[in-house]
């Protein structure tokens, strides 16, 4: 690089070369979204990211391999030795005890992760496509369409998501639902609430990108609007999506659990669901039976925590001002005042 300067005097140092070239080279998997952030993180931020990834990984694995992990089915009340019995304390047969309805707590917690994962997928897929599409069109073309969509998005912000979810649950299945209608009720309410967020984030990015010189240069070349939107604008405006997606995921789990807790959830015979189990364990807590409430509760907390940690650290790592780096070697002191704009050195990172 810098051939222009190179023939004037000494060539650039290897450090400079490494700085410029590093983000692009090396094995391809190093550039995958989360792997790349993991490699660029240090210290506490790396700890947060690793912890978040670990918790999320456990959640996803238990959802996928639920039939192998869970000792019983979610709606199983008896095995070869007869009924499990209700509110049994943790034992070798039932590691986490049984619920008031006579289900195995461990099995319900494990199977519950599958329900939660399906809800997340449905909610994210629905709101992502709708929100990104609307944001792109609205931001790029502007005008009255943009104004109307922004007002609608603002209006939707005023709805509490749980209320919407209850309405959706009643509309879809009259309140009591099986696996798919329960998941859809949560997913649709999440979608309604989250479409405006995707919409706004993408729209503001698109408005910013639209005025960048490379979009202008595409216009001067004579590219069609569709080509500019897909090739130049869209790919450059999805940087913040991973963060909103993680927020979206944890919100989806909380809404599903909230629905279950309020009694609009999924029937226990159709699927395992953490919120329903929590609801049924209210009476147990006062009776000193802790295991029916603690384990589904912990499952909700850890899952949401894990996803949020991933989101938070992705956010910090994406922002060069928040990202910590290994200290430069060989020196004695570190300057304390952070004033200088570091945009220049991080441009390659940001641009990706």
């Amino acid at each position, binding site marked *: *690089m810098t051939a222009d300067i190179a023939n004037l005097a000494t060539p650039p140092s290897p450090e400079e070369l490494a700085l410029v070239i590093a983000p692009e080279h090396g094995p391809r998997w190093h550039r995958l979204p989360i792997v790349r952030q993991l490699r660029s993180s240090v210290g506490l931020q790396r700890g947060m990211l690793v912890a978040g990834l670990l918790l999320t990984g456990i959640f996803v694995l238990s959802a996928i391999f639920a039939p192998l992990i869970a000792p019983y089915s979610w709606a199983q009340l008896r095995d070869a030795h007869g009924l499990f019995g209700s509110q049994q304390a943790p034992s070798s047969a039932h590691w986490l005890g049984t619920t008031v309805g006579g289900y195995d707590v461990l099995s319900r917690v494990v199977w519950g992760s599958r329900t939660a994962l399906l809800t997340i997928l449905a909610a994210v897929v629905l709101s992502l496509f709708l929100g990104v599409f609307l944001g792109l069109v609205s931001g790029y073309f502007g005008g009255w369409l943009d104004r109307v969509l922004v007002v609608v998005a603002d209006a939707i912000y005023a709805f509490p998501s749980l209320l919407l979810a209850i309405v959706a649950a009643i509309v879809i299945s009259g309140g009591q639902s099986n696996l798919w209608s329960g998941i859809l009720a949560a997913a649709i309410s999440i979608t309604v609430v989250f479409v405006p967020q995707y919409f706004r984030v993408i729209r503001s990015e698109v408005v910013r990108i639209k005025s960048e010189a490379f979009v202008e240069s595409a216009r001067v070349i004579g590219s069609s609007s569709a080509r500019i939107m897909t090739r130049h604008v869209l790919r450059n405006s999805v940087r913040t999506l991973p963060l909103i997606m993680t927020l979206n995921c944890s919100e989806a789990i909380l809404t599903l659990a909230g629905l279950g807790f309020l009694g609009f959830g999924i029937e226990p015979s159709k699927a395992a669901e953490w919120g329903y189990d929590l609801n049924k364990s209210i009476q147990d807590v006062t009776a000193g039976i802790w295991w029916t409430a603690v384990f589904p509760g912990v499952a909700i907390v850890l899952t949401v925590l894990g996803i949020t940690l991933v989101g938070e650290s992705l956010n910090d790592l994406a922002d060069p001002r928040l990202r910590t780096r290994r200290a430069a*070697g060989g020196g004695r002191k570190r300057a304390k005042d952070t004033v200088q704009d570091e945009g220049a050195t991080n441009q390659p990172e940001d641009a990706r």
Partner: protein
Amino acid sequence: MTAEDPVVDVHDLHVTFATDGGDVRAVRGVSLRVEPGEVLAIVGESGSGKTVTARSIIGLLPETATTSGAVLLRRNTDTGSSDVLSLSPNALRQVRGRDAAMVFQEPSTALNPVFPVGWQIAEGLRAHTGLSRSEAHKAAIDVLRRVGIPDPEARVKYYPHQFSGGQKQRIVIAQALVLDPGLVIADEPTTALDVTVQAEILELLRRLPTEFGTSVVLITHNMGVVADLADTVAVMYDGEIVEQADVRTLFSAPKHPYTRALLDAVPRVGASRRGALTTARAAAPDAAPIVEAKGLTITYPGRLRSAGFTAVDHVDFTIAPGEVLGLVGESGSGKTTIGRAIAGLTPVTGGSLSVLGTQVRGISERKLRPMRRRIGFVFQDPATSFNPLLTIAQCVAEPLVVHGVAGDASEARPRVDELLEAVQLDRTYGDRFPHELSGGQRQRASLARALALDPELIIADEPTSALDVSVQAKVLELFVRMQSELGFACLFISHDLAVVDLVADRIAVLHHGRLVEEGDPAQVLDSPRDPYTQRLLASLPVPDPDEQAERREAWRALTGASANVS
């Protein structure tokens, strides 16, 4: 305090930054001394470490920096000096403003828009001296008067947006001077300003050592500014000082090859005009002009009830086939707007503008599209004019793909390689991403993209103003060569008279949206008729201290005389 002691003594300074790509040694082993009342200029290209060196004098480095060495800054309160690098944050705060102050590049962002300027000046005073509110207010008025703000009693209550750019920079300087620091560090103080305003700010900065008893560390890339202002010069390259000498010695007998190359690269008005080429072009004067503007007016609509802003006001000009028209003007003169209007990016609101035989006023986007393949556009900032997610080859292939010459980027690759080689880029650069190229290489690729469809007209909007001076010289050379080989017509927009002089066959000078002067370079630049052109030329600092001293006198006479004209 004794007069012999240097105001600041930097000894073997090393600064290393921790970045994602490993450690970057921004400054390695720099030693500098600034004597009382001296103006030291640190020159160098971007990335040479000049700003980092200056910032370390007042301890303004980011957290990722690691420093070693010593920076001894003389205290204003007694005769001793303190090592800035080892001070606690609290002691460092005492030093800033009192012993050394900083003037930033961009005056419009260095001032807080929600406070009156007087309050902002008084803030520094009250943080250090414990003056009462009214005393600080008086001191603020006083310092505003000394930096040449008219009617300071009233204007001390004004907010930053009520001042022009040059006045804002005066206020930033006032803010730095209010505590009578021994040293003012000016980081590119005139880079963001127009050349006529720059001359005024330089005049003010020149008064600092004599009237305020302040030494100045001036950071700049502009050799003209150095010649105008500096007593001694330190040339930095790649984190090291390659040459340090007093200003006359440096300009008359530069020792280091880098200094020589830097000085040679500075474009100068009248230095090398393209006389030979103009004759070849004059052979076809009857051909229909590529661009013809008659009474061209472009108004940006106002918001709600406020009136629109007329950026271009009844401008007439033509560009003949194969001709390079240089469009010169300061910021806000409407030069970029004209370029954008020709490319169809900004609608024409009045008069007529015909481009390649098509009337552009009121044309629809669809009718414009076939015309676009005959126009190329080179943007100012090569860093942002490429889609960061596409490789250079894909970017250069875009016009070919869009206009159906090639099916996709890989099919267009042979032509792309040809283009890259034409602009002196190795064809392997095609596989790199834009951020992996230097500024000059990106601008070459930008030229390659503009040339992809063999256009009849190229619009170059400040194509070299984001580049370092040595890179600029090479890009301009390439541009001139390509133009004479391919013979495209060109609208070359620039604020730099010397650059336009290098490339243009004809020069048009814009001022506040009006065309004030037009003609061939020799006439416009050597014997300008319009007072504005005269002022513009006189304000341009030249990289020669003796010649610049003469020009300064001429400028003083002219601005004194033309004060009633403008």
